């Protein structure tokens, strides 16, 4: 197929093999890089060292190509020595690891779904206390409540759906309050679950008249389901009904035949299978592999007024995410987060989700270790994609400052504040490729992307 690729399309590669040339395919290349970074993430010093080094290198070389050129020309070890002599990387790492938090007792809200795994597990597994924090993780009944409680400052930070801080910042569906996403919690990890009575209706074209549930209007679930339906020629507003239903009510509604299916967070998908009321049609990674879902969100006020508490909290989350990204630890995590104080689900259900060896509800066992994965970096391309979908479905109208809002919510806080303090930044935009159902997305041309869809509400 690569023979027919458009050679003048800047977003596609025409060279065989990977970008660095050392591996057979891009996939092998990414696997190798990933193995190396997981290795580094296992040890605390190297982990913080990596974060600080990343921040410094990004500040020195805003364009990734320059950095690589520089490294190729002088060699990695010379470069490291040269930069270390100019900038106190070791001291910065130390400062990042040791700042004293202004406020030790923090409250973090979460919704009991597996997306919140890093936030939750950091409590029983001691990642918060390791950074000198006394964090209470508080279970909350729904997205609107978690939003209001965070806006009320009852929570210092909270688990949110990643579109929510964008909506809050723009004042869509709430009063405008500057919000930030310092870390994405999970990638993938959602699924379309259908009622067992639809076992034979696997073609979305036959779904006209279905009633679907999604957790919230401003959720990746809503946008992914709409995208998926629209790609199959089903208009999500007129051909089917999509309602916002809190996750815990999804399985109950499916059992009661109130809905035909849902694109929901786990553990609800697996729970529907476990209780014999639904089957997993597809995993959300089959729509967009590597999509963000939930986020760790904090108000800009918390970030700027208590920077050390914020940094310590973020470090706890980063530690937890690093721990969770190792597949060997997943069983242990499932046990830690299953009790009533946390997710409150059978361990078997959580294990299936986290290990990716799961019953699909149709009688077979599927294996997909990347069913859910944990990667904290909030690429601003994610934000731009979310904004394009908000625009596409008429949640926001008029001209949208895609890049501006994305930077403000997903990036800017970290670069301005934490860079100065200690040196934590998410990766620079541009290096992440986003492909949704085979269609690649160029974050620099959001308006064209919105226009390219046949079914839209603009």
């Amino acid at each position, binding site marked *: 197929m690569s023979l027919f690729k458009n050679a003048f399309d800047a977003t596609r590669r025409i060279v065989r093999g990977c970008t660095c040339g050392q591996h057979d395919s891009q996939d092998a290349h990414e696997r190798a890089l990933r193995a190396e970074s997981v290795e580094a993430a296992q040890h605390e010093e190297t982990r913080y060292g990596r974060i600080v080094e990343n921040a410094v290198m990004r500040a020195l070389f805003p364009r990734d190509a320059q950095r690589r050129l520089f490294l190729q020309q002088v060699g990695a070890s010379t470069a490291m020595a040269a930069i270390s002599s100019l900038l106190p990387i070791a001291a910065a790492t130390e400062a990042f690891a040791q700042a004293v938090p202004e406020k030790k007792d923090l409250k973090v809200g979460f919704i009991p779904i597996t997306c919140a795994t890093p936030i939750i597990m950091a409590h029983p597994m001691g990642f918060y206390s390791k950074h000198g924090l006394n964090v209470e993780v508080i279970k*909350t*009944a729904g997205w609107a*409540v978690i939003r209001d409680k965070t806006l009320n400052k009852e929570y210092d930070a909270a688990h949110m759906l990643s579109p929510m801080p964008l909506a809050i910042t723009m004042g869509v569906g709430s009063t405008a309050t500057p919000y930030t996403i310092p870390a994405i919690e999970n990638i993938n990890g959602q699924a379309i679950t259908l009622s067992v009575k639809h076992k034979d209706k696997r073609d979305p074209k036959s779904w006209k008249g279905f009633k679907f549930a999604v957790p919230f209007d401003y959720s990746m679930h809503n946008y992914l389901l709409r995208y998926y339906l629209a790609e199959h020629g089903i208009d999500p507003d007129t051909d089917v009904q999509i309602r916002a239903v809190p996750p815990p009510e999804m399985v*109950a509604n499916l059992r009661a035949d109130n809905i035909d299916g849902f694109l929901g967070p786990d553990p609800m998908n697996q729970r529907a299978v476990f209780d014999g009321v639904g089957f997993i049609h597809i995993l959300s990674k089959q729509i967009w592999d590597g999509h963000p879902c939930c986020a760790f969100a904090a108000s800009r006020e918390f970030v700027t007024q208590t920077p050390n508490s914020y940094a310590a909290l973020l470090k706890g989350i980063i530690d937890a995410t690093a721990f969770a990204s190792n597949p060997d630890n997943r069983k242990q995590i499932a046990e830690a987060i299953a009790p009533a104080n946390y997710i409150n689900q059978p361990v078997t259900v959580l294990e299936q989700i986290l290990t990716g060896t799961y019953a699909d509800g149709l009688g077979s066992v599927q294996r997909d270790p990347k069913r859910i994965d944990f990667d904290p970096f909030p690429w601003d391309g994610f934000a731009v994609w979310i904004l394009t979908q908000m625009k596409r479905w008429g949640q926001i109208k008029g001209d949208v400052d895609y890049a501006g809002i994305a930077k403000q919510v997903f990036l800017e806080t970290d670069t301005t504040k934490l860079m100065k303090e200690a040196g934590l930044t998410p990766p620079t935009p541009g290096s992440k490729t986003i492909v949704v159902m085979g269609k690649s997305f160029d974050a620099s041309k959001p308006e064209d992307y919105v226009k390219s869809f046949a079914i839209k509400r603009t």
Partner: protein
Amino acid sequence: MTLPLNIRAFVLSLAIFAVFLMAWHVATQSGGGAPAANIDPEYAKLMGQQVTQGKSAMPGPLDVGKTIWGHLKDPFYDKGPNDKGLGIQLAYSLGRVLLGYALAVLVAVPLGFLIGLSPLISKALDPFIQVLKPISPLAWMPLALYTIKDSSISAIFVIFICSVWPMLLNTSFGVSAVRREWVNVARTLEVGPMKRALTVILPAAAPTILTGMRISIGIAWLVIVAAEMLVGGTGIGYFVWNEWNNLSITNVIVAITVIGLMGMILDQTLARLQRAVTYPD
């Protein structure tokens, strides 16, 4: 020959309860589908009992009894902010209800008195009361969360707003319906207005006021469960929500039973108070 009415009623109650338990037990035994035959053992290990053994999703009375016993054995455990014993949850709910309710009494009784005594104020406030009274207390929740900016105070506010109306209306009705002769006699005896209100009107209106208070406590207890399900955190309503989240019907039934019993105790307490202030005409 015939036993006293109370004892017969009690025996009949027990019999009804026993029949109910039997019916429930039988219904859950046969419910659910037949155990699925020939499933892959690896697949079966990943599935729940409803699928592998054809167990009904509805728990039987024995399961519920076992769970109740488990809660009774250890009602005050505290395993972190999201998992506390049934006793602690009940105490939280009760605390909220009593606080909101006490505030409502403080506002409704004096205001009701005023309305009952003055036809002018009664007429002037009537449209407001008529509009505010039928609003579902939970509809206040988003507004309360937004303005008060504290979820537990919001819950107390919701209790306050739902229990204030029956008390207000009953108090004003009770006060305005006090026999004219009694007030006139007091006036002839030159009893001051304050003393008249406390020694003549209050005792005369007390049974009606207590009726209002009894209606209110019932409503407050109804509402707290819903409010806590909405806001979460602590309380018996949160307990129901948390167990619903886990689709644990057993625990939900346990909670329903506890809520019912607690509501009965609250109602009976006020009924006793009411009897204490009732006078023969």
